[in-house]
C-alpha cells in the first residue's frame, strides 16, 4: 500500500443551477423574452431593461407562477410572503448597477431531489433577472443579414438577455460524486421540462450548471474552510468531468498540505481541466436591501393550491406507476418518459393495447430495444394484431420444453458439437429451432437455459 492510499478524501459538493424561463416577456418589462434566437443584438430592449433614468420594474406574474410551480413540483415549502431585493455590484452587463433578485425571502425553500446515491437537499429556489451578454473582441455576432465578427479592440454588450427571468436553485453541499451531480442535473432538467417552464437546453445557456467543490478527510463532518466554484459547464458530461478533475487537483494539493485557493474556475473542454478565472477571497458586499419600487408580494393560499393542481405527474412517479399498472420495466419506462408529450401519447397507446388484450410489457421492451418499427403513433389494433398470438398461448410446461430440446439436439449433432466448443451463434440457431418446434415466438430465454442445462450434462 502506497503513502497516498492511506489518506482518503471525500467530495463535498453543492450545485447552483440557473434556469431561463420561457415566459413571453421579460421579468420586469414587456420586452419579448427571446435572448437566444433574436435576429440581431439589442432588438428586444426598452428603457426599463436598459436601465434608463426614471424607469421602474414591474414583476412578471407568469414568471412567479413558474417559480412556485417548480417549488411545488419538487416538494418545497412556499413563502407566502416574499419580496424582491437589490443586489449591488459594478459590471457593464448590469445596466442598473444592481440586479433585482431575492435575498431573504425566496419563493421556495427546503425539500430534496432523490438520486440513486442518496438525496440532494435543496436550500432555496428564487427568481431574479438575467444580465446582458458581453461579447469580447473577435466574438461572432448574429445580425439580420448574416454574421459579423466584432473588432479586435472592442467589447460589445447585447441587452436582449438583460431582464430575462431566471430561476436560481441552490442545493446543500450533499453531492458525493460526479455521477450523482450528473444524475441530479438530469432529474432537475426533466422536471423543468415536464412543467413546461423552460426549454432547459444546456448548450445555449437556458440551463446553467455551477458546482462548488471542496474535499475533506473521509468521515469528517464539518465543512471544509474553502470552496472552489466551477462555472462555464454546458453539458452533463462536462459537469462530471469537471468535478472529477477538480477532485483530483484538490486532492493533490491537500496531500501536500496545501489548502486549495478559494476561487472560481472554468472548464476547458479541450483539455478536460479546470482553469482559474477570478479570485473570490471574501464575499462581496452586495448591500442587499428590499427593492422599494416593488411592493412586497403575498401569495394567496387558494392561488398556491390552484398551482399545485397544475403540477403534472413527474417522470419518477410515472415510471413507478407504469410498472404497477402495465408491468413495464422501469429501465424502458424511463426512456419513453423523457418528453412529457410523448409520455402522454405512450400512455394512451398502453391503455388501448390493454383493452385489446395485447402484451404491453413485451411491446415496450421491443420498442426500447429497437426491435419494432411500431410507436405511440401506430394504430393500436395493428400493434395488437402483431402480438396477438402470444397472449392466447398457454404457458408451456417444462416437460414440453425439455422434449423439444431433446428432439432438436438429437437431430442437430453438428450444432451441438459446435456449441460444446464454445460457439454461441450455434446456440441461437438451436434456440430458434426449438421455438419453431414449440410453435411459439416467445420464451426464448427459457429455451436457451434449457438448452444449456441439457448440453452441459
Amino acid at each position, binding site marked *: 500500500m502506497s503513502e497516498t492510499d492511506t489518506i482518503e478524501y471525500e467530495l463535498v459538493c453543492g450545485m447552483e443551477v440557473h434556469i431561463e424561463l420561457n415566459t413571453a416577456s421579460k421579468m420586469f418589462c414587456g420586452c419579448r423574452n427571446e435572448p437566444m434566437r433574436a435576429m440581431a443584438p439589442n432588438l428586444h430592449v426598452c*428603457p426599463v431593461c436598459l436601465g434608463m*433614468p*426614471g424607469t421602474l420594474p414591474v414583476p412578471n406574474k407568469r414568471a412567479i407562477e413558474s417559480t412556485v410551480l417548480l417549488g411545488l413540483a419538487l416538494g418545497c415549502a412556499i413563502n407566502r410572503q416574499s419580496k424582491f431585493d437589490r443586489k449591488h455590484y459594478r459590471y457593464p452587463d448590469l445596466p442598473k448597477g*444592481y440586479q433585482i433578485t431575492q435575498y431573504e425571502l425566496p419563493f421556495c425553500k427546503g425539500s430534496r431531489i432523490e438520486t440513486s446515491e442518496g438525496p440532494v437537499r435543496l436550500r432555496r429556489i428564487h427568481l431574479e433577472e438575467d444580465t446582458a451578454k458581453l461579447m469580447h473582441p473577435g466574438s461572432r455576432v448574429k445580425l439580420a443579414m448574416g454574421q459579423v465578427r466584432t473588432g479586435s479592440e472592442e467589447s460589445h*454588450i447585447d441587452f436582449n438577455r438583460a431582464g430575462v427571468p431566471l430561476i436560481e436553485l441552490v442545493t446543500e453541499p450533499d453531492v458525493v460524486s460526479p455521477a450523482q451531480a450528473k444524475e441530479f442535473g438530469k432529474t432537475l432538467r426533466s422536471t423543468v421540462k415536464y412543467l413546461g417552464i423552460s426549454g432547459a437546453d444546456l448548450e445555449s445557456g437556458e440551463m446553467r450548471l455551477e458546482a462548488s467543490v471542496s474535499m475533506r478527510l473521509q468521515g469528517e463532518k464539518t465543512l471544509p474552510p474553502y470552496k472552489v466554484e466551477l462555472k462555464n459547464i454546458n453539458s452533463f458530461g462536462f459537469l462530471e468531468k469537471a468535478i472529477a478533475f477538480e477532485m483530483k487537483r484538490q486532492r493533490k494539493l491537500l496531500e501536500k498540505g496545501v489548502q486549495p485557493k478559494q476561487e472560481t474556475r472554468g472548464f476547458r473542454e479541450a483539455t478536460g481541466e479546470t482553469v482559474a478565472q477570478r479570485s473570490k477571497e471574501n464575499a462581496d458586499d452586495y448591500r442587499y436591501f428590499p427593492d422599494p419600487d416593488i411592493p412586497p408580494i403575498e401569495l394567496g393560499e387558494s392561488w398556491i393550491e390552484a398551482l399545485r393542481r397544475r403540477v403534472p405527474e413527474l417522470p419518477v412517479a410515472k415510471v413507478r406507476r407504469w410498472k404497477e399498472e402495465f408491468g413495464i420495466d422501469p429501465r424502458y419506462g424511463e426512456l419513453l418518459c423523457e418528453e412529457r408529450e410523448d409520455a402522454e401519447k405512450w400512455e394512451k397507446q398502453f391503455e388501448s393495447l390493454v383493452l385489446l388484450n395485447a402484451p404491453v410489457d413485451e411491446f415496450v421492451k421491443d420498442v426500447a430495444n429497437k426491435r419494432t418499427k411500431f410507436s405511440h403513433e401506430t394504430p393500436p389494433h395493428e400493434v395488437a394484431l402483431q402480438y396477438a398470438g402470444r397472449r392466447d398461448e398457454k404457458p408451456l410446461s417444462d416437460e414440453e420444453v425439455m422434449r423439444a430440446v431433446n428432439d432438436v439436439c438429437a437431430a442437430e449433432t453438428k450444432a451441438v458439437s459446435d456449441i460444446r466448443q464454445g460457439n454461441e451463434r450455434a446456440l441461437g440457431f438451436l434456440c430458434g429451432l426449438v421455438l419453431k418446434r414449440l410453435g411459439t415466438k416467445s420464451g426464448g430465454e427459457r429455451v436457451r437455459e434449457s438448452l444449456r442445462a441439457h448440453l452441459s450434462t
Partner: protein
Amino acid sequence: MKRRHISARELVDEAYAAIERENPKLSAFITLRDKADAQREAVRLDRETELRPLHGIPFCAKDAYMTEGLRTTAGSKVLETFAPPFDATVIRHLRDAGGILIGKTNMDAWGHGGSTENSDFGVTSNPYDRRYVAGGSSGGSAAAVAVRASMFSIAEDTGGSIRNPASMCNVTGLKVTYGLVSRFGMISYASSLDTVGPIAKSADDIAHVLEAIAGPDPKDATSSHRPVPKYSKLLKQPVKGLRLGIPEEAMHAGIDTDVRRVFDEALAVLGGLGVKTIPVRIPSLCFSVPMYYLIAMSETSSNLARFDGVRFGRSRKFFSEETMRRIIVGTYALKAGYQDELYVRALKGRTILIREFDELWKSCDALVCPTLPGLPHKRGDIAREPLKMLLADSLTVPANLIGSPALALPAGFSRTNLPVGIQLVGKRFNEAALLSLGHAFQRATDWHMRKPNA
C-alpha cells in the same frame, strides 16, 4: 382656464415673453423648448373643437422628468447632453390633457437639496428678492410660476422639494399621497419617498392639474389603483368643523419670529372659517430628519448606480461634491455590518412614526404647521453648513416618511418682504380635504394673488 377669451397660441407667446423677461434674472430654466415648436403645437390645439381639460395651458417641468427629445439633466452635468427617448407618464398625461410643455426647470442636482444651490447649472434666485434663494429642490419650478412664466409646473417632492420652494416663492404646491401619481419617467431620488406633484398659483389650479395626472400606471408597480376623485368638483366642500392638529414638537424654539407671526395670523383666518385647531403630540417627530436622511441617502446611492456613462450620459466624475457626499453616506448606511444599525433602524422608526400618525387621525382631520422653520436664506449663506440645511427640512420630511399628502399655501410675508408659507398635512389619499381647505383659505386671503415686483 376658459378658452373663450384667449387662444393657446397667445398663452404660449405670453409664457415665452415672460421667460425672456424674467429668466435671465432668475435662472429658473435649464432648457427651453424651441419656441416655434411650442407655437406649432398651440396652433394645432387651437384648431381642435373638443376642449381638453388643460387645453393650451403652457407648463414647465422640473428637470427630473424624462421629456422625449428635450434635454433632461436632473440638474447634473452627468446628463448635460442627454435627451430622453421617451416621456414620463405624468408628462404624457399632461400632453394628452392639452398642456403645452415649454421648458425644464432648475433643481438641486438629483433632488439633493433645499435651495437649488446644488444645481450644476446655476442657482435660481428668489423672485421677491434676488439676493435670496428660491428654495429647493424644485426652485426653478416655483420661481417660474411665481413670475407667471408658466401657469403651473410639475415638480417632485421627496422631503419637501415642492413645498419648500413653493413657500419661499409665494406659490401653492402639493405633495401628493405616495402612489397617487405615477413615478414612471421621473429620475428617482429616493424610491420610497419620491412623489410627483404640481406647483401653481392656487389650490384651484392645482385641483385641475391633479385630476389630469393622478391614477394607476401599469408601468409603476407602486402606483395606487384607487379610483381618482374629481378634485376640482370637491373644492367647495364645506370646511366648517374640520379639526386641525398643531404638532407641539413642530412649534419649537427654533422657529423664526416672522414665521411664527404669519402662522398665527393664518390660524386666525382658519378659525374664522369654522375650523377647530387642537394641539397634538407626535413623540417620534424629532427623529424624522435622521430617519429621512438615512433612508433617502441609502436609496439614492442605489438609484444613482445606473449612471455609469456606458449607455447614456457622461462619466461619474461629473458628479458634484454634494452628490458624492450623499452616495458615500448612503453606501455606508447599507454596508454589511452597518445596515441593521443604520438603514434598517430608520425603516423601523418610520413604521413607528406611521403608527403615531394613524393614531392621530382618530382625533383630527389634518395637521397645520409652518412649511419651514425659517425664512429664505441669502445665496451662499448656509450652503457652507450642510447640517443646518438638513434641519430646515424638519417640518416637511414627516409627510414623505408617512406617505401623506401635504399642501403648502402662501400665508404672508416677513418684515423683509420674503414669502412665508404654511402647510396642511392630511390622511393618505385625502387630497380633496386639503385642497378644499386650501381653497377656502385662499378665498379668505389674497396672498396667493400677489406677484413679485419687476
